């Protein structure tokens, strides 16, 4: 750091190349402005400089005036299921050669991907399985199996991502909750419980008739009534004056007892 001290009333933040002049001006404004800029420039030029090919360069200290970030601090990625398992077992990643020897031909072929050792296209002859009938196509079977494996893997990837989001306590908007519905491994739809009831209640009331004439979905839960309806006593009771008399009696008793 430089030994330069700014005049009183001027604060410097060299990390931001900024001066805060808090003095109250009397007289020539331009003069005091120049003073403040002079203080800033002097402080910068007093910092230890490095001579480089491009000229003199000054490493600046960290800024003292704190400013907000533009995006939240990233959290560490949640480990995938495999990564957790590998960590537990102490399994380490190892680099494997891209090429492997194909013993059938004696040539080196790719381990995976196009024209790899295990690719379907690489197979010229596959022995027919006994008891599978004449229309059994082992090539088609192999292609199908590969597709299934890919699908399975994608499911696992999605599950890992979802697990990561869940552990972060993802924010669920009650309306968006309906869109988040995913198919579980069993093919059944499962919905995030949080916010779902609220979302449904909102949606059920969201038509012109407030849901009264809507087509109901199978097993749709009954519309939850929110709030209490006001109830009024009839002005002229149908069954005599009995009830009204009772009410008045009650009030009278309470008042009289209090006054006692």
């Amino acid at each position, binding site marked *: 750091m430089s030994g330069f001290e700014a005049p009183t009333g001027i604060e410097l933040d060299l*990390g*931001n*190349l*900024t*001066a*805060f*002049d*808090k*003095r*109250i001006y009397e007289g020539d404004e*331009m003069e005091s*402005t*120049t003073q*403040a*800029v*002079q203080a*800033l*420039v*002097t402080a*910068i*030029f*007093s910092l230890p*400089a490095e001579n480089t090919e*491009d*000229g*003199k*360069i*000054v*490493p*600046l200290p*960290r*800024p003292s*005036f*704190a*400013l*907000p*970030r*533009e*995006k*939240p*601090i*990233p959290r560490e990625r949640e480990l995938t299921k495999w990564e957790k398992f590998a960590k537990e077992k102490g399994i380490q990643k190892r680099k494997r050669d891209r090429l492997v020897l194909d013993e059938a031909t004696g040539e080196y072929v790719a381990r995976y991907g196009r024209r790899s050792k295990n690719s379907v296209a690489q197979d010229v002859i596959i022995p027919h399985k006994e008891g599978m009938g004449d229309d059994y196509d082992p090539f088609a079977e192999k292609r199908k199996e590969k597709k299934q494996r890919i*699908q399975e893997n*994608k*499911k696992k*990837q*999605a599950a890992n*991502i979802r697990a990561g989001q869940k552990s972060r306590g993802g924010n669920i908007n009650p309306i968006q909750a309906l869109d988040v*519905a*995913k*198919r579980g491994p069993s093919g059944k739809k499962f919905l995030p419980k949080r916010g779902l009831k609220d979302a449904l209640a909102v949606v059920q009331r969201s038509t012109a008739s407030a849901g009264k004439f809507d087509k109901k979905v199978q097993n749709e839960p009954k519309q939850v009534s929110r709030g209490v309806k006001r109830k009024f006593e009839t002005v002229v009771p149908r069954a005599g004056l009995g009830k009204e008399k009772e009410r008045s009696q009650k009030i009278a008793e309470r008042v009289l007892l209090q006054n006692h």
Partner: protein
Amino acid sequence: MGKKYDHSNVVSRAKTGAGRRAIESRTPKAVEAPKSLLALKGHATSSLCNAVLNDLCLLKKPLCKKLHRKNDLLPFEAGGEAHLENLARLNDCSLFTVVNHNKKRPHNIVFGRTFGFRILDMLEFGITNYKPLSQFRGLRSAPGSKPLLLFNGDDYGATETTRALRSLFLDVFRGGMPRNMSTNNERDDVVALDLAGVDRVIIFTLRGEKKVLFRQYAVELRKKKDSRLPGVVLKEAGPSFDLELRRSRLASDAMLTEAMKKPRDPAFVRKVKNVSRDNMGDKKGRIHLGKQDLNKLALARMKGLDKRHRTGDESRSEHPVVQGGEEETQIGQQVKNEQSEETQRHTKRRKLDTAT
């Protein structure tokens, strides 16, 4: 009926390397690149507004992105921020300025910033007394040169609005290396300064609580005879205008707290206590066991002290009188159990000690 493809299990990924890099550059980072300014026109603007916007872009270059179409934007109206936030997200800019012009608020300019592409705070001003950059001669700074900033006035700390104003202008106009040119991974601010690049200063003078004078001056450095430090001469370089504060939306406490959080310093390592290595490279640990309770020592039991083996009648044994203090009279089955547990724990610890 064809089978519908289930998109729910598909992991979305960039298809090209460029796409992957674009996504990567936009994901939040612990140490952020400098903020970029998004310059926008509202649905109706004046030529004055447009000129100010152009000048601001020239000052801010290359950390600036100007959109040339008009946008139906009213950031202060209810629901008006959604479109703005979307534009900020699409262009990956967290600072924005919008100009518009109407009868109620002529020559209007809004400065604001976002956090996580949600509006953090914004301030609206009316522009008066404008002198364009083109009117002045003398300042020819290289694009991306870092300006000095000066905040004039003792009232900046007075109210929440003026504090926000200072923070916002500092955020918008401070220099920094553009995202794609930034080489350091540790600092987002101006890390190193080329002394030859000290050529301009932007000055924000606060008048009262509602008026800010925006001025830019060219800084001429003169050699002094008696010192190796240069003297300063200021020459007005433009643009210059006065800003009259109109509406403001300040940051909510919760959002600001989140935005002001500092990431954990990667260089910080928690001090490991009580673990050392000896000359053979073996790990040694020091364990603090606390003070030992001598009354609960698991000693060899003495028959003489056991009440069953005490001579005399049974009734005396209910109130045994034993030398050596009150505590020892309480020896019973429960205490014995505790003792044995305690000893087990001790031996376990000792085993651990030798194992490490």
